[in-house]
């Protein structure tokens, strides 16, 4: 036990002595939470819209003004031809353009039906879908308004049957994306800092030759591993604590559940990555190699964690793969506890899985660490 303390003391000294690393460890994560949380939103706003008004009638102007009034659209300008519209779209200047035909008003009143041509830049398929929905909403409202103006009152028996939908958004009434992203980004930072630092730490000693020096001492494997990893565990917990406070006070992310449930989960979760980092450093000779492997896993873990894109949308084989993704579990848990107030019982399945994961990783790490070659 005493031996471990000596190692821990040394690791902390080394961490705090590296003047270049300190800001990276402490300042960068905070900046990232602050900046990136604002960036990560799937909300579609500021849609650049251009139009061609071949009719220049009261109705056509009214329709355009409806788009102008909407919060989602920014009117980019009026175009003279469709060709100009396609051109602007190819340059990426506009997202949508609408072409109003020359007989718009007349035909609407006479034929009671008129087609409106709409072009959407659909490279971002999801955004395009949302843009389309917004456009349809505006057009339907406009339809209803004209109908109300032009149509006589219909008796109730012949009236339209309507199925109304009342949406309610639990836990996040304003559909604030930051509430959703901040907890996830905290998880990412905790993961990246602990994983990469621990992964590189031991390889670094290998590279500078001090590991050999330690291997000729009577120190026990477990003492060395615990001593090396503990400081990074503390670091991880610190970043978690800091991140959650920023989330609460800067972004007003709610903390409905018990923070100790998160702390408990995080304590075990960090062990998974420390073990993994140690494991990688056992199988590599240079920091560059270690980095590579760590990076490979982290990018996959991040993009398949449900942080940015929902896991349910993945094909079922990919969903099965995410079962092996520790980041996924922590993101689920931190969101559940912070945003929904889930309790210990609710997160038990995730807790069990992550504990098994941690045990397996660390056993592998201890077994594969050899003092003797």
């Amino acid at each position, binding site marked *: 036990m005493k*031996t471990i*303390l000596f190692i821990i003391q040394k690791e902390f000294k*080394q961490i705090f002595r590296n003047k270049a690393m300190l800001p990276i460890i402490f300042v960068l994560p905070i900046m990232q939470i602050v900046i990136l949380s604002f960036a990560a939103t799937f909300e579609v706003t500021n849609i650049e819209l251009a139009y061609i008004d071949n009719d220049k009638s009261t109705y056509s102007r009214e329709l355009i003004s409806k788009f102008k009034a909407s919060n989602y659209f920014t009117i980019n300008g009026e175009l003279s031809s469709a060709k100009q519209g396609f051109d602007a779209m190819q340059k990426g200047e506009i997202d949508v353009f609408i072409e109003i035909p020359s007989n718009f008003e007349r035909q609407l009143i006479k034929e009671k039906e008129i087609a409106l041509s709409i072009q959407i830049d659909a490279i971002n398929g999801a955004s395009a879908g949302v843009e389309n929905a917004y456009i349809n909403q505006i057009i339907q409202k406009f339809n209803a308004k004209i109908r109300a103006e032009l149509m006589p009152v219909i008796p109730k028996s012949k009236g339209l049957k309507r199925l109304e939908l009342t949406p309610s958004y639990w836990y996040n009434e304003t559909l604030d994306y930051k509430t959703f992203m901040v907890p996830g980004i905290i998880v990412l930072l905790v993961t990246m800092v602990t994983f990469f630092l621990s992964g590189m730490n031991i390889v670094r000693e290998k590279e500078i*030759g001090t590991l050999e*020096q330690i*291997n000729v001492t*009577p120190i*026990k494997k477990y003492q060395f591993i615990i001593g090396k990893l503990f400081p990074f565990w503390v670091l991880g917990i610190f970043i978690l604590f800091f991140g959650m406070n920023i989330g609460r006070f800067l972004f007003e992310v709610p903390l409905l559940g018990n923070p100790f449930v998160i702390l408990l989960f995080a304590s075990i979760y960090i062990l998974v990555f420390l073990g993994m980092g140690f494991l990688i450093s056992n199988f590599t000779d240079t920091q560059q190699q270690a980095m590579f492997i760590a990076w490979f896993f982290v990018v996959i873990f991040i993009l398949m964690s449900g942080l940015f894109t929902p896991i349910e949308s993945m094909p079922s084989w990919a969903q099965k793969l995410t079962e092996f993704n520790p980041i996924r579990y922590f993101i689920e848990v931190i969101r559940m506890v912070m945003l929904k107030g889930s309790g210990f019982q609710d997160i038990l399945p995730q807790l069990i899985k992550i504990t098994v994961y941690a045990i397996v990783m660390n056993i592998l790490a201890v077994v594969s660490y050899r003092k003797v*070659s």
Partner: protein
Amino acid sequence: MKDQNIIQVKNLTKKYGDFFAVNEISFHVKKGEIFGFLGANGAGKTTAMKMLIGISKPTYGEATVAGFDVFKNPEKIKKNIGYMSQKFALYDDLTVNENIIFFGGIYGLKRKIIKHKTKELLSYLGIEELGKTLVGSLPLGVKQKLAFSIALIHEPKIVFLDEPTGGVDPITRRQFWEMIYEKAHQGTTIFVTTHYMDEAEYCDRVSIMVTGKIEALDTPKKLKEIYKVDSMNEVFLKLARGE
């Protein structure tokens, strides 16, 4: 054997695939002796030494160090030996004191004793004022003497030195050897690899390895007589050329 032979080696071998890095070497080292382990680069010195200090497993053969078998009890050996490699593996980003505390600590010394030892060690090296200096900023000579002293901090029975004087000036080398002599007089066994032949003259006995085998083993004086030359350098050259 008893206390006489503190290192005892028989047919010790390390194979990498078909390649014999160390090929059935046998020798013994007496207590308090300065034993020189010579050989050209790649002759197998370092590999042989690594087997003795328990960080490399021999393919076959027998060896006991400080009374413990290298196969069965490598961890017990480690308690009884000190080791200093050619890289002076101290932490550059820790201060002199911190390095002493760390290495003392992992050898299981008590904090009080480490404190006392630190004082003693610094004054012995004449660097009392450098305790809070980063090791990385010390001159090479000082670093090397410090590394040697730290390798001895737990008062081991044997110290293994792997090319300890690479890259330092003759004066520092001289001083370094004086330290080695002093320790040997106090009863510590010194096992040293080197390729400076003048240093070989300082040893009580030397062995010379050529391509994995020990080709000669005796006192420097005897070796010179056998090969009918005036210096160890010539002995070495004759052996290396296979004459």
